[in-house]
Each structure stands twice: as C-alpha cells, then as structure tokens.
C-alpha cells in the first residue's frame, strides 16, 4: 500500500508542477507555451534533455534485456549513446538553437520549409515524423495502466489506471506547456539517478554481495556467456551504433534544443551526458545480469525455468506456445522482482515513483506533436492569420487533450504487441531521417526533392520492416527464416529477436540509403530546385 501512496503523491507533485508553471508563465505567446520562452537555465536544460531522451526502456527494458542477453546490453545501447547523442547535440543541436532563435522556428519542419523553400514537402515530413511518434504516446498510456494496476495489486484496473495517468500527463502539459514538461522531466531524471545508485547497494547487500553472484554465474555453462559477448556478432554490435543517431531527429528532442536561454548551456549538457548515462544505465544493466543468480526470488526462478524450457524444447513447440513461453521468460520486471525480494519497503516506494516517472515520459512527445500540429499545419495553412496568433496556444492546448484522449481510446482496444513493434522500428526511422538535418545544415546543394526522397524512403522502409515483423512469426532462438536472398547470400532474414539485413539491424542500410538518396536526388535536381541565394546566405554565412 505504501508504494501506491508514494506513486499517487508523485502524481500530485507533477500536477502541481504543471499548475505552478502555468502561474509563472510570463505571456500567453506560442513561444512561451511551446518553448518556455527559450529561457531554460543550464541545470534544467541538462536534466530535462536527458529525461526527455529516457523512456520506460531505460529503467525496465534495459534490465530486462540484460537479464536475457547479459553485459552486452550496456555496450549496445548505453556506451554508444553516451558518445553519439552528445556529438549530435554538439554538431546539430547548437545550430538548430541558433537558427531557431534567429528565425523564430519552433519545429524542425518550419526550418526545412524555409531552408528548401517548400510547402507541401514539409507536410509530408510532418506526417512521417508524427506517424513515428504516435505509438510512443499510446505505449505510455498502456504502461501507466499496467503500472498502476501492478502497484495497487489490481485494486485499480488497467482502464482506470490508464485514464488516471493520461489525465495527469494531459493536465500538466496542458497547463504548463514546455516549462511544466521540462521541470517534470528534470524531477524524473533526478529520481532515476537516485534510484539506480541506491538500488545497487541495497540489492547487493540483500543478495550477500555481488562477488559471489558473479563467480556463480561464471561457473555455470548456461549463464557464463552472459558475462561476455560471445553470443552476438561484431557486425550486429556495430550496427547498434547507428541507433543513437535517431535521438536528434526525434521532434521532441529537436524542439527541446530550442528552449535553452543561451547556446553555452549546451556545453555542460554535452560533457555530462555520458556521466548521466553511466549512472542510470550501469545499475539497470548490472542488476539485470545479476538477477540471473537471484533464484531465491520465486518470480525470477519461474522466468529462468521458462527460459531453460525455451532453449531445450523450442523447436518442438508451436509458434503460439513459443510466444507464451517467451513472455513468461521476459525480464522487463526483474528490477521490480529484485526489489520485492531484497529491498525494504521505502526503496520499493521510490522504485514505484521512478517507474511511474518512466512511463510518463510521453509528456514531451505529446507536447511536441501539439507544437508540430499547431505550427506546421494550423499556422502554416493560414490558421494563425485567420484567427490571430492567440489561437495558436488555444489550438495547441486543444490538440494536447485530443491526442491524449485518442491515445487512451486506442490503448484500450489494441494489443500492445503492435505498438511494441512500431516503437522498435521508430528508432530506425528517425535515424534514417538524420540526413535531412545534416543536409539542411551543412550542404548547400541539397534540395527539397532530395528531402522528399529521403522521407519517402524512410516511411517505406519502416513499413516494410513492420510488415515482416508482423506477418512472419519469430523462429526458434538460434535459427532464422530467409526473407530475401540472392544465390547463397542471405540479405533479409527474420530472427528470433527481429529482422536483420545481412546480419545487421535494418537501421544501417536504412540510414545509408537515405543519405545516398539525399545526395543523388539533390545533385540531379540542383539546377532547378536549389534554393535562392538569399535563403542560402542565411544558413551558410561564410
């Protein structure tokens, strides 16, 4: 009961933050609501940008992945992000900030339209960006319902839990706009940092020390590979370094780059970003690996038994039976189980708040979608001129309510697996859109037709991968189904954990082809589609 009370107290605090942000807003302008008046200070900018990038996956999914795959999780997802994301902020984020401030841009599409002197192509980019963002919002509503049900031991049903969490998120985004969202994200990051460090010490003490646990894992042939990377190929490992490119192309991150009061605030964020990654991801991954030795916890023991059964009998099982066994072996809740088994009540309460903070990370995405709709569609298609600029904020707020309500209704009716697939490949989609940003900011000869080719390719590639994932059931672990081959060369395969292109994640060919299309189509069209010198001089001053 205490964890549930702490979670409700947390919901109350974030709601109050929204109200406080509403009261302290200086004007009713769109820039103030959507970008906090471009006035965020350095500490909130760092903590909030980091929190905006962290989803429920960072705390729960990372430990679940490490539970099944071992220490490789940190190299795949954390250390590569610790380098690539800050480099993108350095090279692209700072330039977006400067252009946004000078030209009053509030969304990436506004910049693309101006840079390439286009209108409807910008709308196509908006549509693809929005389509890739919506599943995250739906997943968050589902997460809210699931977590509240789990924390209250079923006292609050899934439907009511989803409604409560969605309403709280909607309320503070509606009232506080970017200012409220940034403050809530800063609080969320602080909670993550606190929980991770404390959890390692408390659970380590409860298990009788990590030294013995590691030696025991190494002694068993079934678990010793979890402490190395022998089960995956170097190419697969390399392909993961493309995933963090997606971060800077996510609209909520692009838009967040515009909120800093001064470009120098990026400095601290860029340097400290890897340290934040270390403090949040290392405990998640380490505890996920160590959970393989926590056989005294019945729920974890049941997962290990399901995994052993999957390894020995998988080939003889039907796809449905295999999927059920895979679900029983899944480790997304191992940290919750470790806390149940080894930690005192107060840590469980802190974890409850941290988990709730993680599933509420959709706030930035809802606000970004609202900003994009208001600026890229409503204002662009004459809405601001016809109804006046004050209608922009009202439209934005109405859109926040609509997006949340629609996401809630969809979450009630649709299986989560569909959106799990969508979010899995949204990362690849956004990484594939990075050439748009790079070309707009660094390449004079890029054209709107190159941008259109890149965008359409991204949409088609994400759709193709989603179709493969949905219609070809995963084969038993260690095997793969060939989807497309030339002679003996297997190009596209469906494995137990996803779709692969020549053994790598689809993100690699998607991003490279996207860049090649931008180059080839721009060069082919530059004679008649190159923007005017006046436009280019605003982007390339020297």
């Amino acid at each position: 009961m205490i964890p549930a009370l702490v979670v409700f107290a947390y919901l109350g605090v974030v709601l109050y933050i929204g109200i406080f942000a509403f009261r302290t807003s200086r004007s009713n302008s769109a820039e103030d609501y959507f970008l906090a008046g471009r006035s965020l200070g350095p500490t909130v900018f760092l903590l909030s940008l980091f929190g905006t990038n962290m989803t429920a996956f960072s705390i729960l999914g990372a430990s679940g992945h490490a539970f099944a795959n071992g220490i490789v999780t940190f190299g795949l997802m954390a250390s590569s992000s610790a380098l690539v994301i800050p480099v993108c902020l350095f090279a692209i984020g700072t330039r977006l900030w400067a252009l946004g401030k000078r030209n009053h841009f509030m969304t990436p599409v506004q910049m693309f339209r101006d840079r390439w002197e286009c209108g409807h192509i910008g709308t196509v980019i908006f549509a693809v960006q929005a389509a890739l963002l919506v599943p995250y919002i739906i997943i968050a509503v589902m997460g809210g319902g699931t977590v509240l049900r789990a924390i209250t031991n079923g006292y609050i049903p899934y439907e009511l839990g989803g409604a409560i969490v969605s309403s709280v998120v909607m309320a503070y985004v509606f009232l506080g706009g970017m200012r409220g969202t940034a403050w809530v994200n800063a609080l969320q990051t602080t909670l993550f940092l606190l929980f991770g460090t404390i959890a390692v010490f408390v659970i380590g003490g409860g298990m009788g020390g990590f030294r013995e646990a590691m030696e025991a894992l190494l002694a068993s042939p079934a678990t010793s590979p979890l402490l190395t990377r022998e089960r995956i190929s170097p190419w697969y490992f390399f392909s993961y370094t493309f995933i963090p490119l997606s971060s800077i192309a996510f609209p909520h991150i692009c838009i967040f780059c515009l909120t800093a009061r001064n470009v120098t605030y990026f400095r601290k964020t860029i340097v400290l970003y890897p340290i934040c990654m270390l403090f949040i991801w290392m405990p998640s991954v380490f505890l996920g690996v160590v959970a393989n030795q926590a056989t005294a916890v019945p729920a974890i023991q049941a997962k290990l038994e399901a995994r052993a059964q999957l390894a020995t009998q998988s080939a003889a099982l039907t796809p449905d039976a295999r999927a059920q066994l895979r679900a029983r072996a899944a480790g997304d809740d191992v940290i919750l189980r470790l806390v149940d088994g080894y930690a005192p009540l107060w840590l469980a309460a802190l974890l409850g708040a941290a988990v709730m903070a993680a599933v509420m990370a959709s706030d930035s995405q809802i606000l970004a979608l609202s900003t994009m709709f208001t600026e890229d569609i409503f204002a662009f298609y004459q809405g601001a001129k016809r109804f006046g600029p004050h209608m922009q904020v009202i439209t934005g707020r109405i859109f926040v309510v609509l997006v949340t309500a629609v996401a809630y209704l969809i979450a009630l009716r649709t299986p989560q697996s569909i959106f799990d697939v969508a979010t899995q490949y949204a990362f690849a989609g956004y990484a594939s859109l990075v050439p748009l940003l790079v070309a707009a900011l660094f390449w004079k000869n890029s054209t709107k037709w190159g941008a259109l080719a890149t965008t359409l390719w991204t949409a088609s590639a994400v759709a193709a991968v989603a179709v493969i994932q949905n219609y070809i059931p995963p084969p038993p672990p260690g095997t793969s189904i060939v989807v497309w081959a030339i002679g003996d060369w297997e190009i596209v395969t469906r494995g137990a954990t996803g779709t692969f292109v020549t053994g790598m994640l689809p993100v690699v060919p998607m991003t490279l082809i996207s860049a090649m299309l931008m180059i080839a189509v721009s060069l082919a069209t530059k004679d008649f589609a190159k923007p005017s010198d006046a436009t280019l001089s605003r982007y390339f001053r020297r």
Partner: protein
Amino acid sequence: MRSLAIAAVVLLYVLHQDFWFWREARPLVFGFLPIGLFYHAAFTVASAGALWLLVIFAWPSHLEEE
C-alpha cells in the same frame, strides 16, 4: 587542438568496437565487474573527456554571437 579533439571523438567511435574483450569475462574488476562491462563503463567516462575537449577547442563560438 580542434583537430585533436575531433580525432579523439573519432578514435572513441572506433574503440567502441572492442573485439579484444569479446569472449573474456575475466578479470573481474573490483572482484565483480566483468572486464567487458568495465571497459564500456570506462569508455563512457572517456567519452565525457573527449566531449570536454570538443567543447573547449572546437566550440562553434560564432553561434553565440547570433
């Protein structure tokens, strides 16, 4: 120094692919941290160092004037 800072970032990207600890769990650093995990933790700290060099020596200061 600007080139050095950029080279440090590129070098780190290459060093992320640490095939030399691929199949090794030992030594356990501090008695409990597999060497592959320790390497990537150290890599993360080194990234902060390289990024510090980048913001000191390659900072786009012309953007501050805009």
